[in-house]
């Protein structure tokens, strides 16, 4: 008989919590189990989810990215401004993705070449991006373009009468699939794990640690920018003051999804489940109706602490 590899335990716990929350919702509220709720769960949390997938790579490598929320806000207002200035939406989106990736690569280069802690570099990046967002435009700007008002809606995949998978959810699911593939089936992905597990060993084993690090932050920057694009699809606007602290939600989703904050162990599908758990908590509280939405934060806080304790006890057991 094969023993279960301890690294799957947090993942199993995540799956259990997710299922339990869903079942609880279905038992308490008659409409909770409807297809629409599930579809919305994906659609409403798409940009958080995409950002969290980017964050998964960073955390797997033992780093952290605090710039996510600010990058999303910056990209959002950048796209809104460019489109209202007459740029075709596709060009604006492509440009935004390039900007996000270059910004991420720049953060990664600082971390690699000056051997700086990711926490500080991305903290600086966060302030920089937030400030730049306000430089682009100081207040919210609605996007009025046919692409946004019609095309995006037409891209939804109809499931049942009056229920369709929104384009944002499609983006999210596609990102999860691609990222899972990168993690498991590319050398880059495996290098991410090895750096997070033991950077020094990875270096001695000939893993290109430096370029991989830059790649990780570039990829995270790309996913943040993509999350920014998806946020404009969702909001139909850009707002420089939005998504403050979203990076922390993303980190919470990653950790609840079973990725070790110290790096080396974790799975992208886990992050998907982590995001869905956060969404389920929010939906539950919305259905309940009487509770203040701040209870969402309390529930997430408690859950996060429980998961950290779980991870610690597992990694502790592994050492012994």
């Amino acid at each position, binding site marked *: 008989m094969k023993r279960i590899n301890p690294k799957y335990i947090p993942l199993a716990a995540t799956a259990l919590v997710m299922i339990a929350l869903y079942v609880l919702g279905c038992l308490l509220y008659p409409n909770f189990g409807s297809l629409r709720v599930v579809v919305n769960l994906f659609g409403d949390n798409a940009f958080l989810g995409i950002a969290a997938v980017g964050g998964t790579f960073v955390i797997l490598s033992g780093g952290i990215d605090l710039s996510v929320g600010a990058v999303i806000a910056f990209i959002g207002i950048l796209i809104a401004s460019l489109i209202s200035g007459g740029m075709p939406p596709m060009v604006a989106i492509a440009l935004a993705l390039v900007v996000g990736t270059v910004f991420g690569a720049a953060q990664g280069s600082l971390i690699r070449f000056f051997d700086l802690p990711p926490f500080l570099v991305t903290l600086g990046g966060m302030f920089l991006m937030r400030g730049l967002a306000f430089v682009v435009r100081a207040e919210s700007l609605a996007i009025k373009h046919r692409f946004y008002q019609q095309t995006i809606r037409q891209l939804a995949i109809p499931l049942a009468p009056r229920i369709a998978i929104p384009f944002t959810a499609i983006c999210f699911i596609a990102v999860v699939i691609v990222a899972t593939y990168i993690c498991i089936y590319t050398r880059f992905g495996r290098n991410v794990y090895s750096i997070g597990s033991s950077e020094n*060993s990875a270096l001695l084993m*000939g893993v290109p640690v430096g370029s991989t690090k830059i790649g990780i932050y570039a990829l995270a920057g790309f996913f943040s920018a993509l999350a920014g694009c998806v946020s404009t699809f969702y909001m139909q606007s850009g707002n420089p003051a939005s998504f403050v602290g979203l990076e922390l939600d993303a980190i919470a989703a990653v950790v609840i999804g079973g990725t070790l904050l110290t790096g080396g162990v974790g799975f992208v599908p886990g992050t998907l489940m982590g995001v869905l758990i956060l969404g389920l908590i929010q939906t539950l509280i919305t259905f309940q109706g009487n509770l203040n939405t701040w209870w969402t934060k309390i529930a997430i806080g408690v859950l996060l602490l429980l998961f950290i304790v779980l991870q610690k006890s597992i990694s502790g057991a592994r050492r012994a």
Partner: protein
Amino acid sequence: MSDSLLEVRGLSKGFPGVRALAGVDFTVRRGEIHALMGENGAGKSTLIKVLTGVYERDAGDTRLEGKTIFPRSPREAEACGISTVYQEVNLIPDLSVAENICLGRQPTVFGNIRWGAITRRAKQALARLELDLDPSRQLSACSIAIQQMVALARAMDVSAKLLILDEPTSSLDEREVGELFKVIRKLRDDGMGIVFVTHFMDQVYSVTNRITVLRNGELVGEYPTAELPRLELVARMIGKDAKEVAAMESQHPGVQSIREGEPFLEVKNFGRKGSIAPLDLSIRPGEVVGLAGLLGSGRTETARIIFGVDKPDSGEMFLDGERVTISSPRAAIRRRIAFTAEDRKVDGIIPNLSIRENIVLALQASRGAWAKLSRAKQDELADRFIKALRVKTPGPEQLIKNLSGGNQQKVLLGRWLATEPRLIILDEPTRGIDVGAKAEIEKLITELRRDGLAILFISSELEEVVRTSQRVVILRDRKKVGELAGEAISEHAIMSQIAAPTAESKDVLHA
């Protein structure tokens, strides 16, 4: 053209303030196992790190099969055909065995990793070493010895021409060393050149064909192993003459002075489930009690429950005849017990602090944050211990990470001596340090004993235990299996108690 595989000529490498290598020549031939010997700080690690591309050389020429090579990273060195297995296992603990073997060179189709091929390749690599191991197993779930074998399998997976083994045996027990030797002999017979760095004399003489000795960054000489007697080798390494060394070696045990009187520490039926079966143990002031046994026999575990790191779940403990419970290392320190841990890199030194700061650390901690030691007092302590322990350093403000292993160990010892302990537990104080420094540490232990300290001495090297201890407690499979005192202590007596179940281990070593 000779049959030489690797030729290093006039290699030099300096660090700020230190000349680590000065014009060193080094030649490895095909189909030989070549020992690289020298004290710590002799330049072995630097030489290896230049060969493997971790450091860049300042001057000199390296040729592999007649072709000049200039690796600038471990990856490039590997591409040239130089593979390395390090003392510390440098693999990725969270990945599987198979992946560790193939990491960085996974078979791919259009950038798409073929996991099936990885497993097959890992199986082949393990089979070549005659290792029966499930390649899907997570590396951290394997013992250190197995991890070391996996590192070797990884090194062999590339078409290596030169294999460098940098103290691969320091955390293996004898049977495992035997397995390792079987493998490297086979590789040698296949025509590979193998560089073997170790501190263990027995191993050098049982497995190598040739020895190159370095001292202070310079080449002392190259000798066929069979033509260099042990004493000569030691003498060359420490730069003394063979007669002096002979005198040093013959200072055999201080058996004459078995101590009478009340023990300082006594434990009865003391144990902890899963780490050490209940045992009795006592140590008198002025006595060295050796704790002998194979790796994993429960030596460190015993030390840990005495020092309060782990809680015992049976038995009682007496200090000066008074029954006490020690619930934490802090409490142990208050009772004037000190403990130098096995892995000085992980548990001991604070690399970025100076020697002075490392020395005063434990004393300061025991006084609490409010009773800061004056700078004058700190300087005095640092000077005293640097002198008393003969730490080789330009001064007390040197960062401890710049010292050699033996000197770091001395500073650690100084740290604990500064707290004026009555019992000091030394867990492998001589591991990974060179012969000269080992002798010094042994001498220090004897001096401390004469000053009336009670000492619990843990070491894998039996000769050392025999030389320094008045009594020896023998552990096997996490159980006390015997105790020897005075005249009865000998390597053979200890061996026969430890090795009873695996008597063939010695033979494997010399097969």
